[in-house]
C-alpha cells in the first residue's frame, strides 16, 4: 500500500511539472469556445491518463529490478549447491 501511495504521489508530481511546462499554450479555448466543459474534460482526461502512464512505469521498473534480484538469488543458491 505504501508503495502504491508513493508511486501515485511521484506520478502526480511529475505530471504537474509536465502540465506547467505546457502552461501558456492551451488557454485560448480556441476550438471549443462554446463549451468550457469540453475543455475541462479534455484537461482532466489528459492529466489522469498521464498519471497512469507514469504510475505504470514506476511499477514495471520495480518488478524489473525484482526479477533481477530473484535471478541473482537463484544463481547464488545454485552456486552454493554446486560447491
Amino acid at each position, binding site marked *: 500500500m505504501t508503495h502504491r501511495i508513493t508511486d501515485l504521489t511521484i506520478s502526480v508530481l511529475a505530471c504537474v*511539472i509536465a502540465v506547467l*511546462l505546457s502552461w501558456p499554450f492551451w488557454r485560448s479555448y480556441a476550438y471549443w469556445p462554446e463549451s468550457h466543459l469540453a475543455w475541462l474534460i479534455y484537461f482532466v482526461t*489528459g492529466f489522469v491518463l498521464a498519471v497512469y*502512464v507514469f504510475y*505504470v512505469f514506476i511499477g*514495471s521498473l520495480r*518488478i*524489473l*529490478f525484482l*526479477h533481477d534480484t530473484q535471478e541473482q538469488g537463484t544463481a547464488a543458491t545454485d552456486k552454493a549447491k554446486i560447491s
Partner: protein
Amino acid sequence: MQIEYQTQRLSLRFFMLMLVLFVIQVGYGMLLSVQQVDPTVLAGVMNFNVARAEHLNLGILWILCGFIGAILFVSPLLSKREMFAPWLIKLLFYALIVIVLWNMFTLRLAQVGIAGWWHGQPWLQQGLEYLEPGRIAGVLVLVGFAILAFVVLRTFPPVRQWNEIHWGLGLGVSALMVVWVFGLFYVARLDLQEYFRWFVVHYWVEGVWEVIHITLVGFLLVLMFKVDIKSVGFAVFWGVALVWLSGLIGNAHHYFWIGTPAFWQFWGSLFSALEPLPLVFCFWHIYLDAHTNKRPLENAPAFYFILGSVVLEQIGAGILGFSMTFALTNVWSHGTWITPGHGHLALFGTFGMLGIAAAYFAVPIMRQVNNYDQRLGKLGFWLLLTGMLGMAFAFNLGGTVQIYVYRILGLDWFGGDVAHAMGVFKLLLPLFGVLFAVGALVVAYDLITLGRRISAPAGTDAHGGAATVHPVTRWGRPLSGFEAGIWLLMMWVFGAIITLGLLSFNLPRVRVEGDPTLPYLLAGIGYPGLLLVTLLFVWRFLASMEARTYAVETPSLLRILPAQA
C-alpha cells in the same frame, strides 16, 4: 555459436546492402556539411536540397535493411523452423535494390522540377520531406513491407504459442506496413498532407521502430548473455506498452506548428514529457541483462553497438527529444539545427547502431568465424560514437545561435547573417563528419571482409588484443546499479539545463531586450556536459565489461591487481 537454420543466411545479403547504403548515405552527409560551409560547392550539379533528400531517404532505407536482416536472422530461431517461402525474401532483396536505385535517380529530378504527374499523382518524386520519392516507390515499398510481414507471420508458430518477443516482432512488422499507407495519400491541402506525412515518419520512429528496437535488443541479449527469456519478455511487454501509452499521444508534439488545432498543445506537451519513460526502462533492462552473469563478452563489437544504441536512444531520443518537445521550447527550436542535433543522435544512435549490432552478431555466425579480430569493430564503434556526439554538439550549439540570431533578432535567413553567426559550428560539422565517415568505412570494411581476412593473430585473445595489455584499473571495476543510476541522473541533470536554456528564450530579457547571456550560458554548459558524460559513461560501462575478459582469463592476476590499484 553455430547457425541453426539455413534460411537465417538470407539475412546476410541485407546486412551487406545495409553497409553499402550506409557508406553512400554518409558520403551525402559529408557533401551536405561541406555545402553548409560553402553553398557554391556542386551548385547546379547536386544541389543542397537534393543531396539532403538523398541523405534522408538513404538513412531510412539502410536502417530498414538492418531491421530486415536482424528480423530474418532471429525469426527462424523464434519459430524453431526454417523461414517460410525463402524465394519471397530473395524477391524482397532485389525489390529493395530497385527501390533504392529508383529513389536515388528520381530524387535528382527535383532539381529540374519534374514530378512526373499522371492522373493527379506525382509518380516520380513528390518532394515531401522524408517521403520525397513518388508514388511508384511508395507502392513498391508497401509491397515490400507486405512481403516481410507475410513471411515473418507465416514463419512464426500459431498465435497461442507466441511469447512477448513474437508479439513485439509480429506487431512491429505489421505496423510497419500499416503506417506506411498514410504516406500514400495525396491531399491537396498542404497542412493536411503534412499531418499524414508526420503519421508515417513519426509513428514509425516513435511507435513502430521503437517496438522492433525493444524486441530485437531483448532477443539479442537473450542470445548473448543467456538471459531468462521470461524476464526479457516482461521487459519487452512493458517497453512496448510504455512506448504506445506515451508515444501514440505524445506524437502530437509534431502538430504544434503545422496548422493543426491548438488543442494538441496540451496533450502533445504532456505526453511528450512521458516519452522518455520506455527509454529509461530500456536502459535499465540492458544494464540488468548485461549483469546477469559475469561472463566475458564473446562478441564485443556486437555488445558495444547494442549499448551504443540504448545509450544514444536515451540521449538523442530521450533527453534531447524531451528538451524540445514542449510547446514552450518547441516554438523556438522547431525547424532549426536543434532538430537535426536530436534527430541524428536518435535515428542513427537508436536504430542504426542496432542494425550494425545485429550485423556484428550475425555475420561471424553465418561466415562460421569463431575467433575474429574484434579490434576493427571496436575502433569503428568509438569513431562512430565520437563522431556522432561531436556532430550533435555542433548542431545543437549552432542551433542555439541560430534561434537567437534568426528568431529573436529576426535577421535575414538567406542574407548570410545567420550563416556568419553559426560559422564555427558549421565548420565543426564536417570535422566531426570526417571522424564519423572514417568510422563508417572501418565498420563496413570490417563486416564485409569478416571471415575472409586472417582471423585473430596467434598469441592474442578473442578480442584481438594481446592477453597482457588489459590493465585492471578503477575505471574497469564492476559497474554497480547505483553507479549506473548516478550516470543516468547526471545525463538528465544536463538535459534539464538544456531544457531551461530553451525555455529561457521565452524570457522578456531575451525575447524583448535581446540579451542572449542566459540561453547561451545554459546551452554552453548543457550540451557539452551531456555529450561528455555520455562518452564517459559508455567508456566506463564497456571498460567494466572488458575487465571481465581479463578476470576470467587470468584469475590469478585479478586477485593481485585490484589491491595495487
